[in-house]
């Protein structure tokens, strides 16, 4: 079974680059470009292996989505990463997520990081 990566990112180029990086290491990628559609997607469907969540999103803020994901036991085995250009914001949420990535996020950096991740229930 292919592992699923959920990329919640409103910038098309970044979403594209992240998708290519994760696709390159054999993940299936689903892209969501605003907070509302991300919320609908998270309500049901396949539980992803990793979620890449941009903190600046249209419609529903990344902060609200993060709380919903954290409150939902279905995602307890999902690797949770947030992305932001704001270093202070990243520091504020660093303790609540698995990885807080500060933009610019390099193609190779993301690829190598996710490549090393094992399923959480196997750790």
């Amino acid at each position, binding site marked *: 079974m292919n592992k699923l990566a959920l990329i919640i990112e409103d*910038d098309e*180029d*970044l979403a594209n*680059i*992240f998708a*290519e*990086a994760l696709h*390159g290491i054999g993940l299936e990628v689903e892209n969501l470009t605003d907070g509302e559609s991300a919320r609908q997607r998270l309500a049901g469907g396949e539980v992803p292996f990793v979620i890449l969540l941009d903190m*600046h999103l249209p419609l529903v803020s990344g902060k609200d989505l993060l709380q919903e994901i954290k409150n939902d036991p279905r995602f307890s085995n999902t690797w949770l990463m947030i992305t932001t*250009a*704001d*270093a*202070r914001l990243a*520091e504020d949420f660093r303790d609540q997520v698995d990885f807080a990535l500060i*933009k*610019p*996020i*390099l*193609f*190779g950096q993301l690829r190598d990081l996710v490549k090393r991740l094992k399923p959480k229930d196997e750790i």
Partner: protein
Amino acid sequence: MSNILQRFLTISTTDPDDLRKRKILNVLLAGTGGLSVLGAITGALLIITSRQRTAENLLILWGSIITIIGVLVIYVINTRRSGKAASSLFLIFMTLIFTFSDSAEQVSGGRSLFYFAIPVFMASILLTPASSFVFAALSSVIIAVIGLSIDFAPNTPAMIGFFLLAFVFWLSARSLEQALGELRAININLDRVVTERTQALAESFSRERIEAGRSQAILNSIADGVIVFDKKWTATQANPALKAILEIPLEIIVNKDFRELIEHPRLSTKSRPLLYAMMNHGTQPIGFRIDWGEKTLSVGAASVYDNQSQNIGTVIVFRDFTREAEVERMKSTFVGIVSHELRTPLNAILGYSEMFKESVYGPMNEKQTNMADRIMKNTQRLLGLINDLLDQAQMEAGKMTIRTEAVRLSDLLEALHGLMDKSASDKGLRLTSEIDPLLPDALIGDPARLQQILVNLVTNAIKFTDQGGVHIQFFRRNAETWGIEVSDMGQGIPESQLAFIFDTFRQVEGTDTRSHGGFGLGLSIVKQLVGLMNGQIKLKSELNIGSTFTITLPLIVPDGESVLKE
């Protein structure tokens, strides 16, 4: 009438004693003159009515006329010349009149004897107290001579009586003069004291008026709103600028309790506790902001003390901070926008060029890979500059915070080598490092900021070094201090520039900013970060030999680690 009398009595002299005596003499002259006029009229009437020119009647008439002439002469001398001369003349004149006013028998031992007591007494008042004795002697001689002229034995009891009287008059006049003198001295002293006090009071009043006027002018002319409160927080004064800032009439502030202003509906509810806190606590904050309607005001307060260091109230200054607050908000928004909007497209450029380099969409030739590499490098340089600007903006806004967590020194160096080795080797330089064995493995710090300091210093060192190498050392100075030393073998910094090297947007003069690149923010950021970490940074430099930056920081060891690594 009293005016005429006053003019008649007035004598121009500055000596109060002389004046007093001459006035008395004038009164006596007036009395004597008046009596003489009456005497002359009586004498004339007697001669006319009786038609007998008896010797007695003629004596009355001529005696009175001579007395009137004498009185007039003495009056002129008294008012124009000398009081003493006039008094002496008057007394002698009186004595002579008494001498010849009666028969020799009566004068030397009879009814007229007591007349001589009058000049003896008057001498003590008009001349000096002791002059009574002179007239006692004169009177004694006169009655003796007159007695002898009619073969009478000298009237010794009368003479002794004259001297006894003179003695009594001398005593009383002397004590009177003494008392008057003392009284006058007291009066003079009192006058002087009153004059001095009046003058001092007038000066103090005028000083106070000037001071009050000056304070009022200052209050009225300054652009900040000022309220002066007394000890019980009742407003005693407010200036026109306050009215303009708060846009409410001063009447609802002055003579009112501060609490009434705090409860004013225009003051935001979250600002009220700040003002109450300022009121209730003796200590006053350096300055804080409140929201008044649409305005942001900065508030400063200062206690007022009197010259006995007693608190007598508080002065509160309100400054319209609306524009500045708006600028700060805009700056903060700008920083946020720049950080997001600039970094996102740069991230995309970086990502795509990396994808080219990694041949994600198929194989690339060497030139294409090289080009992708150059795009990446330039983008990263641009990102670095943006990060520097953002850091600077954050520090200026006071928003840069330092985290405290355990940092492994070996991790710091490893990461630094990972980042910087290539740029050093690209220039043919050695990048070496060492950790003092006395340092613990981990200590408390902010790993990201320490890394930033190291990267900035090492980037700088590599930039200005053309041969040799750059050395990084972590050292332990003492139980409380550790440090970082970055030394290069570069061109060095001229002494004249050392003082400015940490200034914002500054590069060493003579080095071309464009050839080295950068905004000149790196060292300024390093210095500010070190400051935020409660550390110090020092620079030693020698031209053409190299520079050494030494940073000292507080040494705090995480729980469970030993301070000393023996």
